[in-house]
């Protein structure tokens, strides 16, 4: 995920703090999409994602000196701010945010193998449906599992970067990700099984894991 961009985020930030509007614009354009997508994938709401993105950059604007480059990248710092705002919004809006707990809609048999065979043309619709189902499964994860899946799997962050963004240990990220992926498989399995009434269950997920 780490890429070397010129000028660097740190340089742009320094210029921005000195009042350079072009530097702020460049920094915003470089980082807004990641922040927005993170908020969207965490909340499932475009309105929240937009609000959170705005809050993140306003926070950077008003107190950029809080960023300490010795503690991690600016990207991780921004994700960290975004995460805090998202969790706050989800807590505040909890009664109004609909998170689908399972994929009980639809009747077709879905197979995990459809994702593996990316180049299978007749599975395109099926794949899209599975991606939608997976999106819902991610949103249904508990927040502390959801955030590691979003950062590590959807944003391809390293464990170190994710740990910086979340303010926790690398080992915590690893173990949460492991558990989160198992939960995801479990949810998807349950979803597929529920749509395979009377059909061959062997066509869906083959395994179940125990975390006792």
């Amino acid at each position, binding site marked *: 995920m780490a890429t070397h961009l010129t000028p660097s985020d740190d340089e742009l930030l320094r210029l921005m*703090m000195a009042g350079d509007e072009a530097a702020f614009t460049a920094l915003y354009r470089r980082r807004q999409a990641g922040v*927005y997508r993170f908020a969207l994938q965490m909340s499932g709401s475009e309105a929240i994602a*937009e609000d959170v993105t705005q809050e993140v950059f306003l926070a950077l*604007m008003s107190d950029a000196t809080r960023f300490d480059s010795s503690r991690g990248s600016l990207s991780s710092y921004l994700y960290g701010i975004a995460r805090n705002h998202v969790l706050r919004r989800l807590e505040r809006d909890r009664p109004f945010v609909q998170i689908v707990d399972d994929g009980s809609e639809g009747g077709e048999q879905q197979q*995990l193998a459809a994702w593996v065979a990316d180049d299978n043309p007749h599975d395109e619709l099926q794949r899209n449906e599975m991606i939608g189902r*997976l999106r819902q499964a*991610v949103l249904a994860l508990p927040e502390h599992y959801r955030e590691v899946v979003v950062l590590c799997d959807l*944003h391809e962050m390293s464990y170190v970067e994710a740990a910086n963004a979340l303010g926790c240990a690398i080992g915590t990220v690893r173990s949460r*990700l492991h558990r989160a992926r198992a939960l995801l498989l479990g949810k998807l399995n349950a979803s597929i099984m529920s749509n395979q009434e009377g059909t061959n269950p062997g066509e869906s997920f083959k*395994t179940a894991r125990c975390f006792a």
Partner: protein
Amino acid sequence: MNCKNFEAVISDLAREQMLEAHTREDALSHVGECAGCAAQLEDERALTNGLRSLAATMKQVEAPASLEANLLARFRERTAAVETSPVVVQMPQRGARWQRWYPHAVAAAVLLMFAVGGAGMLRLRQAEPVASNQKATASSETAKVNQTVPVNTGETPTAPAAVEPDTVATVGDTTNEARGQKLSRNEVALIMGTGGTRRTASTSVSRSRVNESRMTSGSGEIATDFMPVSYGDNLNDIDNGRIVRVEMPRSALAQFGLPVNMERAGERIKADVLIGDDGMARAIRFVR
């Protein structure tokens, strides 16, 4: 490798993360022997592909363009506010350690420089023979401008400061420009805003000169008011003074509660230092 050990690395294996070579080989070898773990790995890989597909579908998703416009407007507002605000000090709150103590160290170094220079001046002054009292009571305006004149009417006039402008210019290594203006007590009082309770007849002349000194310290220059360099200074005790132009790091502004752009903290700024008759720096103003 057994199933339990395989469980610990299955996510990294499916996500194609870095693994030690022998761990990876052992894991793959175990997959060849254990059907259950092989099935788990297949599901994990499928999940990885699914999540990558999900990420790919959102690759082009970004914040609405209107948000950038809003934020830019806010940025301009903030920048304008910071530029016009007289009290906003941008100091790092949680920055690197050196950022916290650097301004203090610079200010301490500047004050030390003044103190050492002042002591040297005092020594020079003591070595100088006492000048004639007649010289101190010269009545012409020219004499007031160029010499130090005691203020207290009826007091025995003191000797003029023995340190000449050329000497003052060498007080500190960083001194680039020494103005060497000598100011009487009333002029000092006017500059400091402490009120000259015992003004002489030359006050009006001095006031115009002080006003000129306060508002435009040079052609096209803008200056702040003079500020005492340390707490507890009784500015009324300054009988005579001398203004010396110095340069110092911009970060020294923070010591006087003035806004500092930390990005330019290393740049040098001009300041006029009011040095008392004792050779000590008593007040300072910043010049742009």
